[in-house]
């Protein structure tokens, strides 16, 4: 049987790996919790890390990352086959983060959130030996990132933590691909300028 003039012709392709996101998302959409487990094992930590970097607070990051996965699990019918699953998850996480920022701003305006805004104490949960090695480096980067405009910071971290393409970053942030490139570029430039300033001030490179 031949395809009609308007029918897409299927191209021969290699078999899809069983553990590919595409295979797992199809199972997940059919309600398979085990497939969700596999997807979570693969994508949860990058989502958490991105939220931790942008929020600077690990409790907030874990709450939002959980919400993102639970929301994705209950809305799988909205995910389109053939698109990038991790980017879709990041888009959900990004929306939740944006909502969180808006509601935090409202609460701050009403003087309601002061008690909740405490510095991130999450590293206390890390093994002390590692903590010694990582704490200073993390603090330096955290401080510098917080000085970068929020949208640039988010874009850079989508690239660095999420390993997303500029096209996916554009999708997540609802901007053009060129703007995504520009934001990541500006964020990197800002961070480089801060590092140079530290070198100039102290006479040696800090990180």
């Amino acid at each position: 049987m031949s395809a009609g003039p308007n029918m897409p012709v299927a191209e021969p392709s290699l078999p899809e790996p069983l553990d590919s996101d595409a295979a797992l998302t199809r199972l997940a959409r059919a309600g398979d919790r085990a497939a969700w487990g596999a997807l979570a094992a693969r994508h949860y930590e990058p989502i958490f890390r991105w939220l931790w970097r942008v929020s600077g607070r690990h409790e907030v990051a874990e709450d939002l990352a959980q919400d993102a996965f639970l929301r994705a699990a209950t809305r799988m019918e909205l995910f389109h086959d053939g698109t990038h699953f991790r980017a879709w998850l990041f888009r959900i996480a990004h929306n939740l983060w944006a909502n969180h920022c808006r509601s935090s701003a409202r609460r701050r305006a009403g003087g309601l959130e002061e008690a909740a805004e405490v510095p991130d104490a999450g590293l206390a949960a890390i093994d002390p030996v590692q903590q010694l090695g990582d704490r200073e480096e993390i603090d330096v980067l955290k401080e510098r990132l917080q000085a970068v405009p929020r949208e640039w910071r988010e874009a850079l971290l989508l690239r660095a933590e999420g390993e997303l393409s500029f096209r996916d970053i554009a999708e997540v942030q609802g901007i053009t691909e060129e703007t995504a490139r520009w934001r990541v570029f500006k964020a990197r430039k800002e961070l480089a300028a801060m590092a140079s300033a530290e070198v100039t001030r102290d006479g040696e490179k800090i990180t």
Partner: protein
Amino acid sequence: MSEYRFDEDEDLAFDRQVRAQMAPGDPAARLARLLGQMSESRVEIVRPSGVTNPAKRAHNRKRASIKLSMASALLAASLLLAAGVGLGRVRVGGSGNSAAINPATTVQGATSTSDILEISLAKARQSVTDRAEMLARSGQVQALAGLEAVYISVAIQIVEEASAEVPSALRQEALVRLADSFERDDSRFSRLAAETGPACQTSLVRLAAEARRLGALARQRST
């Protein structure tokens, strides 16, 4: 064409450096908390009508010699692969034949399309413990914590699936073999915890405790 100039090598180096930094908290515990949340009954995962046929799935599951669903086997495979553990072999074929195979050595599951997924889980479990030893001895704490989540998820899955099988001599033998395997893992993780530095001890002690618990569970269910 972008007007922005990038030093790609430098950018990639920065990105790698960012990802290499330790995030707060325990990744394994964090993943376990998420999976716990997702398995709560109040979270109703969407199953659109017509996408799957529960009766057909049940029929196919019944046909499989060992009641390990394709999805469960896939989960095990995915988790192991995500942890960088090579599987002994993963084969997908078009044949609908299935033979009685001991789940402690090999597990088969039949999908709705009668494909057979064959995974050497025993070898994979062995690979996980080998990798845990390598990570512990080289002090790679974060990677070990990730492996901990994988081991626990896969191990409990194997025990639960084997336990769910209809009582038979095969089921009993499988559970006894699983119990033996987990007891060996317990000894190995405990020994490693004693031999390696304090950085990895927490994970190794937890792994040993989990292996011990699952060994006892498999032993109990085998009787």
